[in-house]
């Protein structure tokens, strides 16, 4: 078991290395000379050359990569071209927003979707099942940006119950902060709920067909015990992987949702960096999000061991 954990841990190293290579290459592929962008057009050619050598752009690409990787590993992600703020601190200041919304949305989605999925499967082909399946497929088909816009239209503009867009930190103003969180969290939660409920339902259907469930029933166990003790643990394992993917994906910033609600999160930072050609920020965001995603998946895989003792590689 511990050897599995260690192995799984070691396996992320080549992945993270390749991710770094990909990010490095992607940024180099962006048209335009970074030195030029940094200096504006007014400066002289000599200044440009100096800037190039300062950035190491006159060296061979592999050498550039090694220097770059060294900087990254020492936590130096560079400085924003636009604001001059260190990229790492820019990311850190935005991550809190993204993390708050994501965590709330995923918790809400799991609490509602897991029981819904299990019950739908348990009552397969009944009106209850059909309703849950239909509602999930409906939510699955609503683009989050449109759902967000419609919520703003209904709850903020028409009914005036909630503030339209923006963000106030919960630590500064608790009730006010919560009011800003409701719509973004609901938007994300509704869609992810649909994904999780469908996953849990199909997994539960698979498990319900297995002999050991019939055997549990043949022992005289009640349906509640069969579902909670025998079915849940086996059906939730695979669903956990999906939840991990969702969590990791959202932590990396729901660019679209953050744009709709004008939230200062990672996703928005990334999109703004693309508009502004602020390549150190873009590069920092890509690296941060990909690393975070890999690590969340690693943790989920390790958690999986709790649900399935047959861990093997």
């Amino acid at each position, binding site marked *: 078991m511990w050897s599995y954990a260690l192995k799984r841990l070691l396996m992320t190293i080549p992945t993270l290395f390749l991710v770094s290579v990909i990010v490095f290459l992607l940024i180099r592929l962006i048209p335009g000379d970074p030195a030029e962008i940094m200096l504006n057009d007014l400066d002289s050619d000599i200044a440009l050359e100096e800037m190039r050598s300062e950035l190491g752009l006159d060296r061979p690409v592999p050498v550039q990569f090694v220097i770059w990787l060294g900087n990254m590993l020492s936590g130096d992600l560079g400085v924003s071209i636009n604001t001059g703020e260190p990229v790492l601190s820019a990311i850190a200041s935005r991550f809190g927003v993204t993390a708050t919304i994501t965590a709330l949305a995923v918790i809400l989605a799991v609490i509602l979707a897991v029981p819904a999925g299990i019950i739908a499967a348990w009552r397969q082909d009944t009106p209850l099942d059909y309703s849950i399946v239909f509602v999930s497929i409906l939510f699955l088909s609503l683009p989050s940006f449109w759902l967000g816009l419609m919520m703003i239209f209904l709850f903020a503009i028409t009914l005036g119950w909630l503030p339209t867009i923006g963000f106030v930190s919960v630590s500064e103003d608790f009730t006010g902060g919560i009011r800003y969180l409701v719509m973004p969290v609901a938007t994300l939660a509704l869609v992810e709920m649909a994904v999780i409920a469908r996953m849990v339902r199909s997994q539960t259907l698979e498990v319900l067909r297995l*002999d050991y469930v019939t055997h549990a*029933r043949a022992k*005289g166990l009640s349906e509640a015990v069969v579902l909670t003790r025998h079915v849940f643990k086996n059906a939730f394992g695979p669903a956990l992987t999906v939840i991990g993917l969702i969590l990791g994906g959202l932590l990396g910033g729901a660019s679209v949702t953050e744009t709709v609600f004008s939230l200062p999160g990672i996703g928005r930072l990334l999109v703004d960096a693309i508009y502004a050609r602020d390549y150190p920020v873009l590069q920092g965001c890509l690296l941060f999000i990909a690393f975070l995603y890999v690590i969340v998946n690693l943790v989920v895989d390790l958690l999986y061991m709790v649900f399935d*003792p047959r861990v093997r590689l």
Partner: protein
Amino acid sequence: MTHDVLAIDDLTISFPDETTGNRRSVVKSVDLAVKRGERIGIVGESGSGKTMIGRAVLGLLPAGGRIDGGRIRFGNQDMADLGPAQLRRIRGAGIGMIFQEPMVSLNPALTIGLQMIEGLRLHAGLNRRDAEQRAVEMLHRVRLPDPRGALERYPHSFSGGMRQRIMLASVLLLEPDLLIADEPTTALDALIQKEVLDLMLELVRDLGTALLLISHDLPLVARYMERVIVMRHGAIREAGPVAQILTAPSDRYTRTLLDALPGSNGQFEKDTNRGVGETLPDGAGPLVDVRNLAVAFEGSRTWPWSRPPRLQAVDDVSLTVQPGEIVALVGESGSGKTTLGRAILDLVPVSAGSIRVDGESAGRARQIPRHAMQIVFQDPYSSLDPRMTIDTIIAEGLRLDRSLSRAERRDRVHAMLEAVQMPSAQFGSRFPHELSGGQRQRVAIARALVSRPRFIVADEPVSALDLTVQKEILALLADLQQAMGFAALFISHDMAVVEEIADRVVVLLHGRVVEAAEKAAFFAAPRHPYSRRLLHAVPELAFGTDGQRVVRDRRYAESEPPPGHVFAEPAHQRADYVYVSVAEGHSVACVAQ
């Protein structure tokens, strides 16, 4: 009727039919009574509805299943009158059930201990410690090593046979009045099957539990049960005491079933002149000559730098197959018999030794045309490409024979399909899923034989089939072998089938040959203890001195190892193995002392 544990009257069960949308009865008006402590077997082929009866008793029919009529009484309670809670009190405590697949009937995510005591705590109201104590005692009775330690372990760390013992212990722990066992040992090897069944019998006798054994295996049921019920297509064809069913079957289907049993009416007639047109020149060597063959698989490495574990699947095996001869390769699962067959056909890489076919070395630069050797697989459901029609499947066997014209090719395909009684006009444009298991296996045989190979490997070609179909396919193979004269390596775990079709028998244990003999000599006097155990594990249907059928264990006189030797066991070093000839063409693996 009050002394009946279980009484089923006029039971009819139906399932929805996907194709027509109507309901189809899978169990039709079945009557059945089990007395206290009685042992009854339900025998039937696939589709006979036997499994559904067991499930219906516990109210656990699969989705879509419905009881359309009849009554099921357990003791003096009508199951139909019981509410869900009352029904649950009977499940487990009154009626225990064991399923076919030990690998999937224990929950992989829960410990053995938890799964064993949850029923006890529910029905007997014991506290955890007492329940665990009872579980340990029961595991001890099923002779599980280290019963207390087993409680903490998960099912995946036990073998199939061990899991089925755990299941048995877990179910009998509640001391039910009736045990329903649905093909409890079908997925197990013969030796383990016998151990588990013997254990089950011992326990139900001790506990006074009635046993309803559901099985496709008539000799097995006859060997262990008191009464037999024969089912077909959902209806009972015949029921009665074992002796009566065996000696005086009144139903035509029962007789067909009995006749289909291997060994029940002698072997297939075999022309000693070998194949037609196959004249053996004097001094001709064997068709297939395998010398010191070894096949090792590398497992996945634990760490990138560690050495991968090696599994020696086949270890220093030598054997020959003469032209037109059928050599049976027998052994349990994991003995390497399948790997050996694949290695001869160059389907798995060989790590040592040589294979010569017709004098040509079958090395890397093999000279033997591929179509001289072919293979028939066990599972007719996965051996045919589901997206190809029958004609195309057969024609592919001739694809690489460039000497044939298009018309010749078509004629060959049609002739071959004709030969396996699957005329192309009727079946040629169908897809495999539109055929039954037996029909598919005919197609698989036709595909292998259409290129007129001189040698085929037949890997358990009938073991996935129902008994009556099995008989047809074996007869077909024997006929084709007569007509075409090919030699075959017939891989099987089923001694009865081997006795029927083979010329010679080679026994494999842990990748090594332990005994090789002419068929008659082997079945008359097997020498190696392992061969004897294998034969002993399978109940034999034979004719008694009065000419009546009886089921009995095969018994042989004690066999002494050749002087100065002991019989070789897997624990011995391979290098110490010597093959001692005990009679002409009969050798046995020994170790010199």
